[in-house]
């Protein structure tokens, strides 16, 4: 899908202000529209993202990863960068309910997709998601830098496997690394999260 210039301008009006607070990658001027805007399939820098149910207009570089957009453009620092190389899972978010490493997805490829981060799990009035509540109750995780990624991977996994065995759940979150190696307690808390989920649905 390529945005025409007219749609782009309409979108700016409809979507309100452009989010571009801290320019991690690029702050110095530059055209908002790609120079090759007329080529078939070319993309534009100002795009619409749906994050945690909210529509956001964001100025996104072509080489920008979702993790960077979330952390440096949208202020959603709950998503952590542990390796930036798809090797640790700390940056896991849901894209259309499926766990993805946000460090390894170009934001430009996510137009029209639903993105959910750790900040989007609890209700607006602060009621924790069952998996979050289970982690609190069972005191899962130690330093917790890996926690958001583990929780998002679990929430995504439980959508397809709501009643997992401990071993299945371990496979489900096996794309997430914990250097405190609190894996045993993490699994206990996530299993309880699965149980809470089944109770609430």
């Amino acid at each position, binding site marked *: 899908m390529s945005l025409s210039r007219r749609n782009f301008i309409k979108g700016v009006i409809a979507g309100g202000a452009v989010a571009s607070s801290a320019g991690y990658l690029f702050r110095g001027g530059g055209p908002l529209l790609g120079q090759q805007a007329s080529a078939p399939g070319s993309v534009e820098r100002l795009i619409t993202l749906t994050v945690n149910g909210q529509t956001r207009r964001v100025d996104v570089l072509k080489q920008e990863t979702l993790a960077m957009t979330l952390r440096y453009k949208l202020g959603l620092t709950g998503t952590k960068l542990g390796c930036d190389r798809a090797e640790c899972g700390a940056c896991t978010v849901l894209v259309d309910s499926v766990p993805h490493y946000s460090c390894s997805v170009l934001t430009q490829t996510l137009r029209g997709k639903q993105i959910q981060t750790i900040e989007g799990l609890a209700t607006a009035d602060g009621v924790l998601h069952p998996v979050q509540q289970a982690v609190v109750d069972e005191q899962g995780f130690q330093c917790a830098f890996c926690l958001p990624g583990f929780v998002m991977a679990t929430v995504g996994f439980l959508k397809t496997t709501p009643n997992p065995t401990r071993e299945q759940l371990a496979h489900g979150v096996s794309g997430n690394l914990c250097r*405190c190696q609190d894996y045993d307690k993490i699994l206990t808390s996530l299993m309880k999260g699965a149980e809470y989920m089944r109770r609430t649905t």
Partner: protein
Amino acid sequence: MAGKYIGQNYIPPDHVAKVMGRARYAEDFRADGMLFTKLLLSPMPHARVRSIDTSAALAMPGVKAILTADDLPDLEGAERALTNEPRYAGEPILAVAAVDELTAAAAIELIRVDLEPLPFVTDSLESLRPGGPNARLEGNAWGAPPPGGQGPAAPAPLETIKWTAEDFAAAAPGQLPMGRPLEEWSYGDLDAGFASAALVLDETFVVQSTGHHPMETRSAMAYWQNGKLFIHASTQSVAQTRGSIARWVGIEPANVNLICEYTGGGFGSKGAGAVSSAIPAMLSRKANAPVMMRITREEESYIGRARTNMTGRAKIGFATDGRITALDLFIVQDTGAYGPLGDHRSAGLATSLTYQPPAMRWRAVNVITNTPPRSQQRSPGPMQANGIIEPVVTKAAKQLGLDQVQIRRMNSPEGRAEFGPVLPATGRRNRVTSAFVKDALDRGAALFNWDAKKARAGRRQGSKVRGVGVAVGPHGAGSIGFDSLMTIRPDGRLYVQSGVGNLGTHSVIDLARVAAEVLDMPWEKVEVTWGDTGKHLPWTCLSVGSQTTHAMTRANHAGAMDARRKLQDIAARDLGGRPDDYDVRGERVYQRSSPGRGLSFAQAAARAIALGGRYDGHELPEDINAMTRESATRLAGLGLMGVAKDTYPRVGATYSFVAGFAEVEVDVETGGVTLVDFLAVGDVGTIINPRSLLAQIKGGCCLGIAHALFQKSVVDPRYGISLGDRFHYSKPLSILDIPARMDAHALDMADPETPVGARGVGEPPVGAGYGAVMNAIADAVGEDVFRRSPVTADIILMSLEHGARMHEPLRAHV
């Protein structure tokens, strides 16, 4: 031992923030006009910077400042954040600050650094060879520390040491050559010990280096306000890192405000902060703007610290009943490009303690190489000692026909066991405060069903064979002499200041549980302040080496007792009688004989403020640290102050122990190892926070298991460049590699030399996991299959294939 709070689980106050993604780590902070920095890392393992041409970079739009080693204070030869003589490939030479990271990266690529290559060496044994290269211009090894400086990281002189060709020739293939050591101690009659032995074994073992790799790299963000440095950096020890940063930046500690509420892991690599944090601090001053330094995972693999690798040779004599008669240990330690580190010393002492040889000699050389810098990593030294000694004990038990638990039990320390050499200060050998290792082994063997598992070990089914192993991991577990600071305020609540780093072990909060216990204060009325040196923190131990729980439960016991006495004093003063007539309970201080007569905590707090002086912190004890004094002064007048230095007596050195039991299954056709069952029992004193404690035991065991199975560092020796810069190369343990079943227990037996009875727990499980798994592999496939770790599939398969050890015997970093 359990009380109302001590020994009870609770939900730490930071957990909701953590699960909501609101817990902010260093890289989560932003500031207006924040610049980004990228580092230029040395491509060579050892070189001298001849010149740097930054003109093209500085001409780029958006580039704001460039920082080199010339901008940094001299640290009298100690490691600095940037260098003009890189000593390992990946060492930072300069840093660029620019409006965004892309510009900073592009600028780095425009900078021309003229480097003069210098001789380098990546393997400690190569440096010891006649004519072998020195890793540094000044020498190749750290000598013995001056008298009195026997601490693990005591400063030591640089020396040049080469062994002779004869030294090397004297060692059989695969044996560690033993030339002149630079450090040495001994006790007992070694010759008599060996002479009386029924069996003498002499084995060499290579313990690998591994990167600490906390999930959070050492990113930091800094800015200056009114001449004061504000820095968001990741550290294990908030109170003590303020001074480190001040030293690295060259300013007074009072002018540093360090903020670190959450630390994404450290494992020893962020003990008193990270020297690299000077970069954003200095760049920020130079560019006059906030500077964010995002450290990438690859950079972390260079500057992020690693465990010292050791090649050890142990000659041990055993009596026919398995009792050790003499132990002769030689260690060649690789301390990387910097140091000195004392893992080798801790390894010697831990060996003496864990295996209780009646006669022992320890010799060591602490070699510098052009590989990434080391620091203490969770169980620094004792874990490596487990690696060197355990295979010998396992082999002896096999040859003597003894049970593996039995041989360890009979040689284990008991009570106030002696260890190490005679101390010059006392003329006696040191003792531990307490050891209940035999209880831990007995309880573990029973819970693990050791005998039943042992009965099926070694029998093959299909391509699978099982084995069982046991090991005891020891470690020093507590320091003394730190301070506590707390106030009971007129709102009736207790405010505890905690200078501990928040690594998720919950010791940062646990110390307040002790205060709540002593004062009988409802937990919901306790507020803990932590993570910001601007928030009046007391002088606190480093959260390294399993110290915190011991040190800070003592200090906070003292502080709470001080508050308690002040409550009694005020009550006696206002209501008559002697202070001892008053009890403290139910948020009141009241007369024991007439419980209606008393003051609520809120009233007492108001009275303390009215009375002033020592009651509300306007007069402070003489013996507290200057940092505590500064913090207490700022809190003075807010309520009744409990402030004290831990002066409780302690006789002996505090050590903790964990006994680990493992059952593994080895596939003899692939060499693959599967962990079937694992159990650990901690002899770690009184339990403060059971859930957290058991998680520490399991997590620590997992780190040891990772060392047994896969985790490693790899360096190409010809080019001196690290190759393991990705997790799929360095192989930290995944959730699918943990034991299928994992259980942990703790004895909950109080240490007699500390008021709360608690010892530390972070380190000892590492050696337990490491040793137990390696011993189980040996039990399954033969005790001579390997003499290095990690024991990967290739090592097992090749040994089984050829009926002899086939792996590279001595080379490091493969």
